[in-house]
């Protein structure tokens, strides 16, 4: 059995980078759902924070695609298992934890903090095997596992990325010794900030070891922070973990604040100010023939089209990212509609996007809702 964590071949590295893309994408559905579950006129601070983080996860996804492209890979977001089946599982040291689709609330926030928490091994664990063996069920999506064997888990997301960083360094060093490089990708496939930008970090082309390491560092630091500091290394960007912590503490961080002690303006959370969606809803649970079921399937269909569009954008047509922007805004409307509709047969619970992509692919909605533009 393969129990070594190190990456030995370029193909293996490509698989790890696909795993990184899957991992970065996997946080988007839970964050987006929580964001759009928030009721109007309340929780505006929380909505802002969630929105920023979603935008940055999209950035991370794109950065991972840039790195994969730089080593001659072909990002594919349409692989059947690309979208996690929720609840999915993320490594948390010795155990996994569950990441589900649920409404904004204390429970969701606790999960989000776990996702973004810097996980450091305690001293006595440091000598141990980097990979942890845990039997996973056939149908579970286990993120941050070894691409070849999903029973082998990394200790943390951080270690998963550390393995990628080491793999890139070693493979490039080896290639250099042979007068070659692993960075053979076509530079025109790189997505740059022209096509995508936010306040949170810029997209830059990846074409050599340095730019690849910079790119991966940005992903790691925006999530977890810079080992102790609340801001990432250029003192610009508050790490995700601390943004979520602002919500727990009810106060914003200011520059110079110590972790756990924000001193900025207070913020208000209304823990009941979210629609009561049924967690991890599946299409099969929605009454057949209901409008809600049709709309849920239509959303999944559209989401699949979005991932296909992104795949084309990441494969030499960066311009298509501009077309993807309106689709993301369209999701917002579709999700809001699902989330505000009561779930038939489940009093007190509402609908939700299910993110079952590639299943129920036929779009029964098309007949009803053909977007007739005129």
């Amino acid at each position, binding site marked *: 059995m393969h129990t070594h964590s190190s990456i030995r071949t370029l193909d293996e590295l490509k698989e790890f980078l696909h795993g990184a893309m899957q991992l970065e994408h996997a946080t988007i559905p839970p964050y987006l759902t929580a964001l759009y579950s928030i009721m109007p*006129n309340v929780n*505006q601070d929380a909505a*802002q924070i969630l*929105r*920023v983080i979603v*935008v940055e996860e999209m950035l991370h996804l794109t950065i991972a695609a840039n790195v994969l492209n730089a080593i001659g890979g072909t990002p594919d977001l349409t692989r059947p298992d690309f979208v996690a089946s929720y609840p999915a599982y993320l490594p948390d040291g010795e155990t996994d934890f569950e990441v589900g689709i649920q409404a904004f609330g204390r429970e969701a926030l606790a999960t989000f903090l776990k996702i973004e928490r810097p996980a450091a091994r305690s001293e006595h664990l440091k000598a141990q095997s980097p990979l942890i063996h845990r039997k996973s069920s056939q149908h579970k999506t286990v993120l941050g596992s070894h691409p070849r064997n999903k029973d082998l888990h990394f200790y943390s997301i951080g270690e998963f990325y550390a393995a990628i960083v080491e793999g890139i360094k070693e493979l490039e060093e080896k290639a250099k010794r042979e007068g070659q490089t692993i960075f053979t990708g076509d530079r025109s496939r790189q997505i*740059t*900030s*022209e*096509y995508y*930008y*936010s*306040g*949170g970090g810029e997209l830059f082309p990846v074409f050599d070891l340095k730019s690849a390491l910079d790119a991966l560092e940005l992903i790691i630091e925006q999530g977890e922070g810079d080992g102790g500091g609340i801001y990432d290394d250029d003192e610009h*960007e*508050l790490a995700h973990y601390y*943004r979520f912590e602002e919500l727990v503490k009810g106060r*914003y*961080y*200011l520059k110079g604040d110590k972790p756990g002690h924000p001193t*900025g*303006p207070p913020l208000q959370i209304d823990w009941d100010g979210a629609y009561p969606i049924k967690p991890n809803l599946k299409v099969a649970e929605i009454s057949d023939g209901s409008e809600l079921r049709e709309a849920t399937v239509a959303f999944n269909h559209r989401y699949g089209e979005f991932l296909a569009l992104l795949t084309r954008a990441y494969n030499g047509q960066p311009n298509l990212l*501009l077309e993807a*922007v309106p689709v993301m*805004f369209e999701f917002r409307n579709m999700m809001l509609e699902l989330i505000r509709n009561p779930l038939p047969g489940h009093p007190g619970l509402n609908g939700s996007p299910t993110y079952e992509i590639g299943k129920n692919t036929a779009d029964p909605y098309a007949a009803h809702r053909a977007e007739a*533009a*005129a």
Partner: protein
Amino acid sequence: MLFPSESALRVDPQAVAGSRDYDIVIVGSGISGAIIAKQAAEAGKRVLVLEAGTGANRSLVGYDDLLTTFYSAAAKDNQSPFPVNANAAMPRSPQLRKLQAGETDSSTYIVQSGPYVSDTTYTRIFGGTTMHWEAKTPRMLRSDFKSRTNYGQGLDWPLSFEEVEEDYRLAEQEIGVSANVEDQSYLGQTFPDGYVFPMRGLPLSYLDQQVNNGIDGTSVDLYGRIYPLKVRPYPQGRNGIPNPAYDGGRGYRPVGAVNTHQVEEGGRCQGNTNCVPLCPVQARYHSGKTLAKAFRMNGKSGQPLVELLPQAVASKVVIDPDSGKVSALEVKVYEDPRSPVYETITVRGKVFVLAAGAIETARLMLSSGLRSTSGLVGRNLMDHAYLLNWALMPQICGTMRGTSSTGGIVDLRDGPFREKQAAFAIDIHNDGWGWATGAPTSDLLELVDDRNLHGRELRQGLIDRVSRQLLLAVMLEVMPVESNRITLDPQFTDALGNMRPILSFTVPEYTMRGAAYARQFSRTVFARLGAQDHTSYDRSDFGYVAYEGQGYAIRGGNHLAGTHIMGTTKTNSVVNKNQRSWDHENLYLVGGGSMPTIGTANVTLTLAAMCFRSGRDILNYLH
């Protein structure tokens, strides 16, 4: 863009009054004051900015409160996001009524003197009118600076286009203009070799494209000269796609929303179709973005160089009789927008900059008894005159989407015809007939209440009625006329006892001749598009003007200018070409009021460029 948190704290008025170390005191936090404050801070100068409004919209929460106010307003006029504040009142267009000649209406903040009533507005809050501007940023044309010489109309500027060009580029950088040089190189406009705008041009709306399909390749004949027609994109002061070639290949980093704690908003324009009255995501520039940069600059001792005192209404400019210089400003500081209780403080500095907009700056000068040697303070009031033309396109055009306006017909901004009649630029309004009729709400009411539609027929009716709307808003040149003016009268005062502006304005005949032609021009365009003309001007309209047997409803453009024009001598102008008062050497009157003509360019870009010039002059003066 992060505000330092201390700038969010309220500055103590007594400390301000006791301070003797301000190099520059600026009245107004709009774009003019912001640019000068930032330039001065970069040079290490101490600056005080006085703002009449509450300043609550400095934080994202305060800004978003404006948005909620807008959502909640039954009448969504261009001031609807901004709460009523009697201590810093502002004009609001829904309150206007038709007046007879000689009739005065003092029921609104601006006292209107009939018969023509102007619905022009400006915004007295932190950020000034850039909080509600549409952010179209065309440059003035070369010929606009010499309209007296070229066409025998209006006045020449004491500056040429060439002298202003570099400052145009600075203004485009500060505002963050999205445009393509190739789209803007019409009518002989030129740009330095290799110049690109900070961000790429915003795409034309589908509506613009439909209009262009109908007129591209056609032309009009005016006094024997042929003018080709097409829809051209407007340069826009809102975030688009950064151009990597900007600044010699260094690119441009867009400036997002301002706030006192970390937030990422205000990236690329999302197409909220609400530039006026309020961009909900701060993708559109407002001067808070410039001020946020200024507030971050610290002096040698680590103290912030720029202070903002909100709820501070300058009420008097005090002149030292010996030197003729300004010695102080009297400022009324109120405690609460809901109460007229205030204290008067005296603020001292080395240089004073009045940057309160053309009407408020003139009002402050006149209420201080400062008419200037030329007697021109308050005179030559200008604002673009708008003539609205509306029609239904034969096909669905997807109206109500985009920025407020992405494109227009601008090829009649210049030509020999300007010897006889006003030039114009036409905006295609992506929000359809909204400005003219109150669409789409007015359409809904008509279809439900008068046409008795419901269900499917109502849905189809709305598609047919709204998605095909085309509004051509013709923005006409208005030349300076001394009798168009702001005056004061002690009988008309506001809650703080400050005298309110009285506006007397007649649309000049030159402009009306242009308007009459623009109406015919619009009919020609509609005919080429096969569009049904629905335009009608009501005699009872407050802006109704009869000209040569026809009537036209003229709207104000909120492009206020000319109340303290610049010129070559102290007898023909109020300020020199650096916007410095001829009479008081440490006083600068900046903004649209200094412009001797406005051509067919929305005024903000030009007045921003002028402020860079003034900022340099102020720094020279202080050295």
